[in-house]
């Protein structure tokens, strides 16, 4: 059974905050599956999106809240969050395969961002499932290299106010 949990953490944007979070995870034996950090809506704040592999997510959240520079920790389950990840994926595409690869990519709205003599590199944006599905689709052609940004997520607005849910 998967123990993956999606957490967003609002922290003060101070030197070493990422180190504090990472050190705490190491100290407590929690595994980071994915981590993305960037500036948040206000100056001096950062938001981390962490996918953690831990059997007891409540303890992870409490230990995160205990850090002095942490302002807010929220667990987002898959249903109430908007999740996105960017993947750059370079696949084999010689002249024989090229059109087939491009056709398959078009279905996923994967954008070709670099074309070489024998490869094409795509940029794919989406939720984790879409990225996983696209990767499976590309495997038969041969995946040369791949990089992911790490998942980012925001909670959805409560349903009543969420009049134009399009994400």
């Amino acid at each position, binding site marked *: 059974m998967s123990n993956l949990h999606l957490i967003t953490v609002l*922290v*003060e944007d101070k*030197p*070493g905050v990422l*180190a*504090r979070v990472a*050190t*705490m995870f*190491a*100290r407590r034996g929690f595994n980071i599956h994915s981590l993305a950090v960037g500036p948040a809506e206000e100056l001096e704040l950062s938001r981390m999106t962490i996918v953690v592999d831990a059997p007891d997510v*409540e*303890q992870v959240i*409490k*230990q995160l*809240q*205990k*850090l*002095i*520079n*942490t*302002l807010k920790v929220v667990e987002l389950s898959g249903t109430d969050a908007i999740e996105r990840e960017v993947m750059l994926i370079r696949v084999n595409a010689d002249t024989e395969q090229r059109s087939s690869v491009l056709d398959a990519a078009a279905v996923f709205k994967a954008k070709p961002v670099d074309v070489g003599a024998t490869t094409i590199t795509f940029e794919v944006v989406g939720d984790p499932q879409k990225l996983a599905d696209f990767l499976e689709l590309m495997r038969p052609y041969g995946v040369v290299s791949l990089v992911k940004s790490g998942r980012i997520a925001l909670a959805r607005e409560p349903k009543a106010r969420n009049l134009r849910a399009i994400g």
Partner: protein
Amino acid sequence: MERISISQALIKALEFEGVEVMFGHPGGAILPAYDPLYDSKIRHVLARHEQGAGHMAEGYAQATGRVGVCIATSGPGATNLVTSLANAYMDSIPILAITGQVPTTAIGNDAFQEAHTWGITMPTTKHNYLVTDAAEIPDVIHEAFHLASTGRPGPVLVDLPKDILNTEVVWHDPTGIVDLPGYKPTTTGHPLQVKSAIELIQQSQRPVLYAGGGIIASGAHAELLTFAERANLPVVTTLMARGAFPDTHALHLGMPGMHGFYSAITAMQKSDLLIAIGARFDDRVTGDPSHFATGAKIIHVDIDPAEIGKIRKADVPIVGDARTVLRQLDERLAKVLGTGTAPTRTEWMETLSGWKSAHPISSYEQEPGGLLKPQYVIEELFKTTGGDAIVVAGVGQHQMWAAQLWKYTKPRTWINSGGAGTMGFAVPAAIGAKMGMPDENVWAIDGDGCFQMTMQEMICASTEGIPVKVLIINNHNLGMVRQWQRIFYNERFSASELTDHTPDYVKLAEAMGCAGFRAETAEEVAPVLEKANSINDRPVIVEARVDPDEMVFPMVPAGGSNDIVILSKDDLS
């Protein structure tokens, strides 16, 4: 406006916080801070090793309840403090550590005496700072004191690069208001949870109040007594809570845990309700958690939300300060009881007193002319002091005997290294305690293995005029290691024997400027201790040469179930 150096500002900031004494050791990077200290009213105690300085700060904090301050230089100075910081973090002791650092321009270049102190101490402090903006100093120190002493107390470290220390600033008094958006400890328990707790307590047939070190940290001993009496609740006090509830009280069942009292261990095990206050279900208390008090519901009161549910799920979790929540519980109970009284639970109370009388802690026999028993020595110390002393212990057999056999009746009279199990803690911690409580008789009860780890601090004690007393329970072995090797490793005493007659502790005492005495027989013990008690102008070292084969009982083997308590040597087979 007068401009002063950051070093002067640092000392001024410490004076502003009311610091009377700091324990430390100077060196290159921290030298700028030592210069203004020369003119300051703050007393500096020169430890002989930075680890000692850290433990002195801890002993001071544990004896007084105030923040202990230690100071060291960069690199090895700072790394030598790490053990003390880890110890303070485990036992929630409020200390402030100030360390020098190489100049900001040299950081990261492997400069002389450079260590990544900030990174190294991140997991062993409640919070730490590397100051890179000189103007922050007064506020950082103020914030550090606030963090160390509020919420769940703990160690805070401030790392100061040498060039920052030499910068000049305009002094401003800290505003007194600390605004940390991510740090707002909850001190008052949720009223609905308090209500639910009282309902559970009233319904319980076999309750036990499990008092932890948080009672002492929050100064809740009086509130604990009032509530336990009103609710008619039997109480156990953990290793960190000895003295939080009087050992002499009829409701007291003793210390629980690996070497606890049978009555305390078994009462928890058979209870239907555990009311844990300022305790954290440590493995030394619970044994195998899956077999711990399986029939008990749990009320868990702690100021640190992360402790609640960490080991054992709580039926009624209450986040709050032990003292405040105990007042709330007592008010609620008083309201519920009205003119009535709490349930008597006669059957449970009779069972408990049966266990107490059937299995008292003391199971040794001191034969006249026989080998001196360590337990006898500790009981004699209790008698000769009338129990009126602050007892400071190291880690091992002597610590367990000191925790079991002394009758603690007041908080902050028992100081030891609980969670971290830091050998060598006693001597420096006793020095710190004596600095904080100069009118008290401070006795370190130490093992010979522990003593040899930090004994150089006795030189500090004698030269600084800090008359602590040390009782060395000398079994010329690492006693607890030997006990485990005897029970679990087929008597293969690998690397646990210390030399029989070296050092000569009496000569050593004299060489370090202390009075030194030795007791080898039962008859010699009391006179020697009385002589030691009468000396107040210098430190005293008393060596008691004891039976190396004596073992600590009761014992629950590590990771075992608390259902199986080994009561004596005879139970081992």
